[in-house]
């Protein structure tokens, strides 16, 4: 009784949009698809919705072959990253549109629409025109329309990406309650995003997608703690995880004339070259640190992102306060070596601070 995909492949041109994608989504589950722009997230969602036919592979839902069911009979709902509503209809008519298509009776429709409006916080907006609403409100209407439908599969395609910073934060917070209250118990929720933070906050099962290929699947915590390779480490962190090419020699890690004492969790590592990964938040300003040159300093919200360079090594440090720096200024930073990841030269994870694999 699940949504099961086997070996989905879609290659309309030279590039794979989906490359042998398989999954098994269970009823009532929350699944997030994490991947960069053009990684195939939208293609995957459209394939599930039935808007695209994969070149090969199939999808089964409730033990029926889904590929034979046309879109309009699939009972799915989808929210796009663009705010797609019916511009010629009012808010109420928009949300009731799919219900009318299903020929529910007037009373039922009214109740469903009101519930959905309550869930997304738009009570009192029933008679407004879509064009009169702000972007955030338009997206709420789209969300309400898909909730009111009580579809068995709810697809959200980067629903927050076109909203401004504040609204995004706010809606992201609300999503948790919306998903708890507004969904039928058995709904499969599939949420695609480029933002690792959304993935962590929604805390569902994650599929990491890149160039149409599934790189890793697992609970959000797992992906965060143990990215199986460099690519996943980059995709699942924002800013991307810093990768430093360094040498491990007895008891220390060296790169760019910097020596760092070997942390405990890496004690079993062989002596050779590795890609060391460290999150931006684990690089701190300190007078006892090593000197780096600032290439760029970005202030975002209450944080400062420092793009640092030393020799051929470039890293990004995340400073948790707003500070002014000059470009080309030298600063001293320390690396929290307890949080070092180790990747082999071919990119595979060898060791993480959370779990030690055999090198």
């Amino acid at each position, binding site marked *: 009784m699940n949504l099961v995909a086997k070996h989905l492949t879609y290659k309309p041109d030279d590039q794979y949009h989906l490359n042998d994608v398989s999954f098994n989504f269970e009823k009532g589950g929350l699944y997030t698809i994490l991947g960069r722009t053009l990684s195939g997230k939208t293609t995957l969602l459209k394939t599930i919705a039935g*808007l695209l036919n994969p070149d090969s592979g199939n999808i089964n839902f409730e033990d029926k072959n889904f590929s034979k069911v046309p879109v*309009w009979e699939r009972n799915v709902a*989808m929210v796009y990253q663009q705010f797609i509503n019916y*511009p*010629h209809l009012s808010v109420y008519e928009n949300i009731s549109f799919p219900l009318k298509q299903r020929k529910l009776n007037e009373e039922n429709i009214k109740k469903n629409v009101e519930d959905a409006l309550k869930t997304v916080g738009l009570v009192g907006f029933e008679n407004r025109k879509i064009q009169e609403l702000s972007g955030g409100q338009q997206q709420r209407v789209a969300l309400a329309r898909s909730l009111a439908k009580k579809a068995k599969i709810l697809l959200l395609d980067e629903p927050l990406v076109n909203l401004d910073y504040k609204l995004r934060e706010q809606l992201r917070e609300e999503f948790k309650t919306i998903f708890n209250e507004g969904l039928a118990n058995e709904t499969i929720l599939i949420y695609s995003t480029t933002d690792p933070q959304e993935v962590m906050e929604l805390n569902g099962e994650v599929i990491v997608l890149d160039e149409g290929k599934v790189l890793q699947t697992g609970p959000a915590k797992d992906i965060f703690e143990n990215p199986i390779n460099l690519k996943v480490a980059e995709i699942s962190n924002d800013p991307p995880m810093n990768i430093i090419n360094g040498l491990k020699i007895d008891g220390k890690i060296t790169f760019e004339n910097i020596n760092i004492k070997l942390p405990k969790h890496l004690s079993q590592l062989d002596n050779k070259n590795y890609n060391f990964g460290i999150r931006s938040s684990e690089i701190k300003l300190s007078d006892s640190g090593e000197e780096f040159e600032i290439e760029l300093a970005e202030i975002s919200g209450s944080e400062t992102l420092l793009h640092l360079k030393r020799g051929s090594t470039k890293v990004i440090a995340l400073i948790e306060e707003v500070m002014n720096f000059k470009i080309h200024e030298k600063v001293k930073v320390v690396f929290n070596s307890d949080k070092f990841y180790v990747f082999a030269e071919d990119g595979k994870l060898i060791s993480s601070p959370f779990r030690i694999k055999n090198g």
Partner: protein
Amino acid sequence: MEKLYKFLKYMFIILWTVFIVAPFLWAISTSFKDFQSVNSKVTYIPWLDFEPTLEGWRVLIKSPARGGVDIVEPYFNSLFVTCTASLISIVLGTLAAYALSRFTFKAGFVRNNDITFFFISQRIMPPIVLSIPFFIFLSTIGLLDSLIGLVVVYIVLLMPIAVWIMVDFFNRVPKELDETALIDGCNPYQAFYKVVLPNSIPGLIVAGMFCIIFGWIDFFFAFILTFTEVQLLPVKVVALNSSITPWWSLSASALISVAPLIIVAFVVERYLSKGNLSGALK
């Protein structure tokens, strides 16, 4: 500077208005004159300058037997041909445009853009190229000098305009709108008429306006493909001209020829001012 700019702006608007309105005023005043008032001296104001008469208008509805020209029948012929051809062109053209905008066609080397160009290319060649084929075609199927024949010809002329405008319009309607309709339980036909069409009214109005204008003003095909049975307004108006130019009845017929276009312009203007032509879809 600000004031000078404003002054120049209004001067320009006033001049432009005079430029547009003057011929109408001239035509209106002339249509109420008789031979004497047109030819003796320059006159403008009725009753003061000249004695107004309805003769110019009367000629238009009098039958030829009583010395008139009777443009009533050609007028309704023109209305019928233009409206019917425009309506059919819009319906067929919109369907074709939607298909061209949404589906991918492949036939040999032919792609969507080639098909769209094929439609437009019908209007690129000079109309005279089409006159002989049309003539032979209509005479073969026995529709020469008939309303139906004219409607058929005008559909050929007007549909490319409708296709062209509507393809461009549909291309700007996000595909996701159709997809959402499908997801919300519409089959492709319902998605078209329940969602896409109601959001395409601005495009339909523009396409309709162009069809009506181009259909209404056509003289060339109306002249070539009709003889005695059926006549269209532009041909009849030109036929008014004889050895003595009847300025009064020419003015009157010009005015009633332009009237439908003015009505069309007002309808479209109302939609424009309501902001319905833009901003419906962002």
